[in-house]
């Protein structure tokens, strides 16, 4: 039947156009890939690969990761792990596994708190409800330091010994990429990555400062140790 045939052609044409429009929209809105990558080569000013740099990407509209419950332990007068990455809203406990008291504190804008003088289980749990870098210290042992990186994204990676870090499955056309390291001078390095043209590759140079928290064991020179 001619009418049936004409209707079929119309339906096919409409379907084809709809698919084309959907594809264009998808390309525009999602960057065309839906699984873009950002590959970073993190180095210091001398060109030496930097391990343990934290890299994360924020994409407007992307799904927020679920908060987690984690622990930062004090053991052998050190914080372990030295760097913890958590989603916004996560809860952190600070159990003291040493046989001496610790006094955990933070002056950081992202979270200010202190847990005075305790041994054993954490006297409370701290909810990190703002993104940012939180630096931890112990008021008894001044050399103790650790960091909590609070992020509002599921796209997080850590650089390996070769300085390589890869952010995968980035769904979007643009992403704000940030790089931070415990010895970085100043704020995290950030830029906007264009994800439309495929994988992004970039070398990031970090200005790192020496770790001056460890000083010679000098009972008369002013160190607290």
């Amino acid at each position, binding site marked *: 039947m001619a009418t049936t045939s004409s209707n079929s052609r119309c339906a096919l044409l409409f379907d084809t156009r709809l698919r084309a429009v959907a594809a264009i929209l998808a390309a525009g809105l999602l960057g065309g890939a839906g699984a873009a990558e950002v590959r970073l080569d993190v180095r210091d000013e001398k060109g030496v690969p930097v391990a343990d740099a934290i890299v994360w990407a924020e994409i407007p509209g992307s799904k927020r990761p679920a908060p987690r419950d984690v622990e930062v332990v004090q053991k052998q007068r050190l914080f372990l792990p030295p760097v913890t990455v958590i989603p916004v809203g996560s809860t952190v406990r600070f159990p003291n596994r040493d*046989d*001496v*008291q610790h*006094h955990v*504190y933070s*002056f950081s804008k992202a979270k200010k708190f*202190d847990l*005075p*003088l305790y*041994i054993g289980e954490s006297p409370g749990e701290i909810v990190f409800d703002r993104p940012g870098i939180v630096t931890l*210290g112990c*008021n*008894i042992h*001044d050399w103790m330091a650790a960091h909590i990186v609070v992020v509002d994204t599921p796209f997080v990676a850590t650089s390996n010994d070769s300085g390589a870090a890869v952010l995968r499955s980035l769904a979007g056309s643009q992403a704000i990429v940030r790089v931070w390291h415990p010895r970085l001078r100043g704020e995290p390095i950030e830029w906007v990555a264009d994800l439309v043209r495929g994988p992004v590759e970039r070398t990031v140079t970090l200005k790192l400062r*020496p*770790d*001056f*928290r*460890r*000083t*010679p*064991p*000098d*009972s008369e*020179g*002013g160190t*607290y*140790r």
Partner: protein
Amino acid sequence: MPVVRIRRHLLTTLDRIPVLRVVLASLLVVVFPAGAAEFTPTAAGWSRYESNASNSDVATQRVPDVFLGGRLEAGTTGVIGRDWRWRAGLSTDGEVALRYPGLSQIEGGARVGAEYKFGLGWQAPRLEVNVYSGVRAAGQAGASGLQLAPSAALTWQFAERWGVRGRYVPDWFFAEDALFQVAAHRLETSLWFDVFPATRLQLTGSYRHGDIVSYAVPPRPDLVALSEVQRTTDVFGADRIAYRLVADTFSVELAADQGLTDVLSLRAAYRWEITRKSSITYGNHILELALRAAF
């Protein structure tokens, strides 16, 4: 003389105390601290050169010497509430003078102290008050005795690599012989800078007012007029007389600490001292190399 009365009182009190029992009890408390205190033994060994070991104001009478010394200390630090710490320690140290054995000495002592931290964190200033007392046996006749040295120190690490420290140390030494009695006050201020993570430079200036013992070849009517006590001694030879007088001493020291491992550090220091009393002036150049361990 109040100093004489204090000394008599201290020695009488010391006689009444079962010293051995007190020392053993203190040692137990320090080594096996109760609660959350931390036991921190330290050790040091050093070599020191002094250009004017005889404290002489006449250039031809200045004699240098080299000292080899060592120190062991068992210290304990505890926490009293949020801002207060207490410290206690037992120590023993000794020095051997290579050229003039009479300057050798050995000392054992105890230290107790408290520290207040003005706020949280490593940048918070700290006020520390200590009292040290030790018994010294000296190679020189009459120079043995009891030392009492309280101190107050204010420390502020105002930046990651920079810090300052001010310290006041009154010092009394109650010697067997009046020649070696010392009453002195010392003020010192230090500035340190961490050049590298394990390298620290420290500049210290100090002022001391108090008793010194100067050795000179007589006749020295000027020293006789200025000094309170004079004695013939044989530490630097039979021709010398020791004079005890009150003088002012200024010093400047530059020291470098290098951390070698987590527990070991090496210290090299140069200190220049100048001592004055009326027309009497003498200087001393002191070089020190020390190896320290903190566990």
